[in-house]
């Protein structure tokens, strides 16, 4: 996809929403506004919400919308600077020292530098979209390290000096809210809480994402999923699961299962927790029939 100037795409929230729709991502007004503001104010965008509401997908859609490469940094407990910024290739440095013998050698040369996602983004000649996924899984120390990067878009490497971004990246952070993020991080970002979509929007998303699903099926799935989410489940199904359920049920129906039966048999792609499954099983028939009505 050709590269687009961010300002020409983000002329208004509506323009952002319609461009995202062409990347097969349906954003509501609030999310479109948040993305528009993040691009125009040049601030990172912090997306929070339950698992499976499309936070990571939103980042991918923004990258596609702008025709930029997406660089993804997956966070986890214990992630540190060596995984996020850069690391030296020590084995190669040792080999080089041995080979050099009496000769002078610069062991802090570019060829020994392994660029991790944040450095990759800074060194890229053109603007990149950086996705810092599940920031809530990392430790507080890492959040503080990121804070420095996000405020100045630069990294200091003691042996090399400071590296500044050639083009300021567009940064999207996601969090499942398993822990409270630092106030300092929240206030540097444009913030948006993504909730589950309403039935109508979810049906539209299913139509857009699933391969070969009839409109009626998409609506029935959306309605049933709304009812199921309202139950006290350990793992409420996300949008991706709803799409898979519509797909799986369609395949089963084409293979000869009548409608309510096809939905029931495909339930494994929607609910992936044994306990939830046994909780919802007695009611499932009724929920599906009501949704199909």
């Amino acid at each position, binding site marked *: 996809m050709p590269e687009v100037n961010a300002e020409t795409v983000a002329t208004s929230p509506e323009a952002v929403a319609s461009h995202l729709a062409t990347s097969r991502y349906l954003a509501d007004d609030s999310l479109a506004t948040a993305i528009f503001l993040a691009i125009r104010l040049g601030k990172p965008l*912090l997306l929070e919400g339950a698992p499976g509401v499309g936070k990571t997908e939103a980042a991918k859609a923004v990258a596609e919308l702008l025709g930029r490469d997406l660089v993804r940094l997956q966070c986890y407990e214990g992630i540190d600077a060596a995984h996020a910024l850069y690391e030296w290739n*020590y084995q190669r440095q040792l080999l080089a*020292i041995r080979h050099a013998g009496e000769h002078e050698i610069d062991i802090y040369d570019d060829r020994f530098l392994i660029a991790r996602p944040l450095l990759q983004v800074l060194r890229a000649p053109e603007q990149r979209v950086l996705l810092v996924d599940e920031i809530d899984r990392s430790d507080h120390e890492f959040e503080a390290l990121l804070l420095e990067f996000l405020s100045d878009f630069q990294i200091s490497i003691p042996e090399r000096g400071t590296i500044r971004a050639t083009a300021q990246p567009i940064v999207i952070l996601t969090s499942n809210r*398993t822990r*409270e993020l630092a106030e300092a991080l929240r*206030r*540097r970002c444009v*913030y948006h809480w993504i909730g589950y979509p309403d039935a109508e929007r979810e049906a539209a998303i299913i139509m857009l994402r699933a391969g070969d699903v009839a409109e009626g099926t998409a609506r029935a799935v959306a309605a049933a999923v709304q009812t199921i989410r309202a139950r*006290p489940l350990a793992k409420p199904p996300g949008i991706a699961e709803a799409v898979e359920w519509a797909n799986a049920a369609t395949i089963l129906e084409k293979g000869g299962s009548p409608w309510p039966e096809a939905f029931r048999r495909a339930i494994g792609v929607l609910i992936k927790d044994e306990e939830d499954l046994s909780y919802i099983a007695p009611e499932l028939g009724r929920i599906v029939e009501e949704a199909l009505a």
Partner: protein
Amino acid sequence: MSALPNAASPFLGFGRLLRRYGFAIAPEQVSGFMQAVTLLGPRSMADIREAALATLAPPPDRRDEFEAHFQSHFYGSTSAVVEGDADEETRIKDDGGADDQRIEAEHSQEGGELSSALEQLSTRDFQRDDDRLTAFQRKLPSALPARRSFRTVRTPSRGKLDLRRSLREIVSADGDVPSPLLRRRQTVPRKLLLLIDVSGSMKLHTADYLKLAHAIVQGADRAEIFTFGTRLTRITTALRIRDRDQALARAAAQVDDWDGGTRMGPTLLAFLSVPRFSSFARGAAVVVLSDALERGDHAELETAIRRLSARAFRLSLATPLAGDPRFRPVTAALRAILPDLDDLIDGSSLTSLIDFILSLARPAPAASTIWKRVS
């Protein structure tokens, strides 16, 4: 004095209003808000609302409050600012950071009945308990079960080669290879989660439990304390105050459901439904201090305990009833949850609880095997 146009004052005022109600709003967020409004047009009030949500970033659990302030400030509807909700569902009170001021204000307005719980705390304060708790606090960090972290520490022997530091040594020694430096994965103490039943049937013990909780928060690296009765309340932040009397007073003021009934199942499910709380239970040593006398149906309690047990490293129930030698886990609720418990122990005295918590790192047979042997 100010060079700002008049049109800017409502936006500045909104920032000030939010701060007054305990929202942490930075000056740069207010200027971001104004920039956002400028960028959006604005064409309608909806745009201003979206800009406020995106730039002032209210926490999701205070969204309703934020909306009410927005309505009252920009639409002038005074009735909109109403705190709390009147539904019958289990409410979760979280004392996280920004709410502190608000909680203090509430406390000073309704002294009477809350401080009666406080009096009990101070009158039952024996010197002996004090010494025991101080010793417990000191021993706790090294007594907690540990897990291996992703992070590494330097070690003189038995570790992996630390190439980064070894290389620096080699370079500074001009190519000579000194003895290699080693690192191994660090061990970190597991988190400790304490859930304290404050219902009427536990009245005699809650004061001791709170003192124990204070010692835990002061001693352990990562601990979380919740109270539950008909509601769930997080009191960890209050217990971080070093002075015990002050901390307990603050914690006591936060709990609304002293000496009421128990809705253990629904409150534990409410705990599990908040990702931030339930993720704290993952891999943690979880100790529930309760007699588990659940009113009515115990299906929800069973579900909650099963989920909690699946997350926790070790799930223990300390009940004061087990102080009686004739005690057997025979109630329907206890029988149902026994297979999911790692320990079912005596919670009738501070001494037994202290001994138990200090032994958490040592493996023990499952609760169901022990109680089968006894009964």
